[in-house]
């Protein structure tokens, strides 16, 4: 999974550039993202390009949240397409993530 990373203040915004996150690339994604998940890290995943996530992909995103939370940090999501939102709802993961429409909203939420 290709990713683009940028810093806005102390928030790291990661834009996922692939269209699907599934059993085919979830393992690689977890490996590549690990370096960005620092203790007390404030991270936003921009999922706007993502069209499909299977249970492996959802598991990978969930493990990022767990890892950040364990170190006192947090992960917020933004830009979810309708089908991806539906998959989050399917497994009730929308209830444990903070989900925003845009990057700006997600970044701003860290300051509140």
């Amino acid at each position, binding site marked *: 999974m290709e990713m683009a990373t940028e810093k806005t203040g102390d928030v790291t915004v990661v834009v996922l550039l692939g269209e*699907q996150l599934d059993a*085919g690339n979830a393992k690689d994604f977890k490996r590549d993202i690990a370096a960005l998940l620092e203790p007390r890290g404030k991270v936003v995943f921009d999922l706007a390009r993502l069209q499909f996530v299977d*249970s492996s992909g959802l*598991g990978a995103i969930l493990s990022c949240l767990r890892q950040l939370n364990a170190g006192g940090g947090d992960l917020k999501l933004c830009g979810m397409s309708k089908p991806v939102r539906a998959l989050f709802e399917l*497994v*009730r*993961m929308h209830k*444990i993530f903070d989900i925003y429409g845009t990057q700006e909203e997600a970044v701003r939420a860290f300051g509140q």
Partner: protein
Amino acid sequence: VLSGNSDTASCLQQSIRHHARYSLGKEWRGLSHQEIFTAAALAVRDGLVDRMLETEERYSKRDPKRLYYLSIEFLIGRSLTNNLCNLGMLDAWRQALSALGLDPRDIEESERDAALGNGGLGRLAACFLESLATLDMPGYGYGINYEYGLFRQEIDNGYQTEKPDNWLESGTPWEIERLDDACVIPVYGRIEHAVDRRGNYNPMWMDWKVLIGVPRDMPIVGYGGRTVNILRLYAARSSRDFDMQIFNEGDYIRAVEQKMASETVSRVLYPSDSVAAGQELRLVQEYFLVACAIRDIVKGYGKTHDSFREFPSKVAIQLNDTHPTLAVAELMRILVDEKDLPWEEAWEISRATLAYTNHTLMPEALEKWPASLFEYVLPRHLQIIYEINRRFLEQVAVAFPSDGERLRRMSIIEEGDRKQIRMAHLAIVGSHSVNGVSRIHTELVKKSLVPDFHQLWPERFNNKTNGVTQRRWLLAANPALARLISDTIGSGWITDGDALRALEAHCDDEGFHKEFRAVKRSNKERLAAVIKDTTRQTVDPDSLFDVQAKRIHGYKRQLLNVVRIIHEYFRLRDNAEQPAVARTCIFAGKAAPGYWMAKQIIKLINSVGRVVNTDPIIKGRIKVVFIPDYRVTLAETIVPAADLSEQVSTAGTEASGTGNMKFAMNGALTIGTLDGANIEIRDDVGAENVFIFGLTTEEIQQMRAQGSYRPREYYDRDPYLKQVIDSLDSDVFSPQEPGLFGWISGMLLDSGDEHFHLADLPAYIAMQERAAAEFRTTAIWTRKAILNVARIGRFSSDRTIRQYAREVWNIESV
């Protein structure tokens, strides 16, 4: 193409040629009948699609409440003739084909049956959809697009053999694939127990596999063509990135195997009676149907509604038996998990939306699934079912304090070494309406099957006696009788079954009698030709056609019929008696592949036939034939040709029956027990116009309770009966396979025959003798046959649908 009138035939002809060229890509010359059928069906489909889109537009403008009929089976049969018939295009079709130098029957017979069902339950679903469309009601079917329908039956040395029915081998022109409406269906996995952002318990369904449900729409046209509704059938596909991990690891074969496993879900229809509890694939199949349907219904509703408050006033979902019962848990899952509704509100919506039809009284046929299998296949649904049950049992405990035994009986979860989920209990708890399918059946549901539930919620239970569509079963299947009726009383009966009553005025009209008999005679000739073609037996159309056509099952008692035939055979053979009439005993029906006893009965019928049909003393006064591969299309030839309709199930076992209605609608007289809808048919057509015999449900219940059925007493009392039973112990009917039928005498006499054959046999024999004597008196018989047709109107599925619409679904014609 279908909007013309005088030009319709030539438009149709052009359209068929157009599709032959541009859809099939072939020159007209040299096309096979099968190819011409496909081109013709596509031409007809064009017209159906126009009307389907118009219908949807009409519905959209009104935003009416819609009914969704969930059924694991839809036994459609062929569609071409019925579609043409309902579009009023049969004459144009015949003209068009003649102009093309073709016999329309050759093309009609090229269509393969869509055999997506086992019997009554699936055919009922198909009749209901046709009636909904005819009544201009917004009603949709949801089912599975099985690649293999019910097996094809062949008879080899008298035994049933099963061959696969790959009905989609060369595709079907009726279905329209809707890839844009494909849906993702998760299955398997585990629950991860977590807390949400507010600190509340938040179970998450993780590590599931994905199935993709691809819908195919089959247009269902009502009579007159104003309304075309949709039957949406789902095929299972693997996800586009099927097990990429396995694939990436280089195990291509395993990845392909996984893909095939996913697609297996919609591959084959399970034959009834062989759904062994615990079969994982069947559970996945039931869930697949429900998950696709509910997702689609919720999506459709969401297009025009922002909240779920109005859901029950816009959506009604009918569960055809327990197979789609998972709808209760799936709808709750969507409302609570995905739409964030509080449990209480979701439950209210869900219950107000769902309704359940019970189809069987036999405890062994009531579905139960091991909780362990559920946990493996549908872990989140199991959690939801436990919660439904917890809240339900609290309610029971309040209504019936200190009654632990009642709680145990009513629980959705059957406790024991192996916990099981009782699907019928889940359906009753999760529905606002529970109905049986005939008067007596509904009473038995209330009093014997689930009396605790009836005591708790008496208002929830109601009866909807089944019905059949007269468009398929009279207008299309018996065109000569349909024409005679319309010429005599007008064609109002086609959409108003009660209008058939006007025929009563002609029941003593000699001219009408003559024409009525001529129609029956020509239908019998047609069936005789089919019998010759499929069994090599010659039968006499002047003989009494005594027909038992239905699934082969212990409770339906084909054995009672055979034993009576043997009884009559011995009397003719040994006493040189003359029968009142020559009789052709016609059997047809499939036995579930794993149902040994039913398959033995088929062998017995064929074996008895082999002896009786070739005995020179009998000289054809009794003929016994078994017509192979009973299916809708064969029924359409058998039913119009029957004189006598055998409906002889043990009282209290047949929920309703619909064959009984089809036969009576075509002028056959019923010989039957007081079971299922037979009772109501008797009430409507008149006791003097049917031959009712045998024990009542109450008598059988009493004998069961007291253990007072002693078959040996019947055996010892009647020397003829003794001779019949002994013949099964000997090798009279199985000279090549000694001892083959010995099990039958043992079962009938000593092994607690649960179907009370010998208790009913004397009355059955006597009633058959009366029927034969009456058949000889042509005028009396014809009068009775006419009165059967005249008074069968209440058994139109239009009446049934109107009742559901008014009393359960709250939907209207649009």
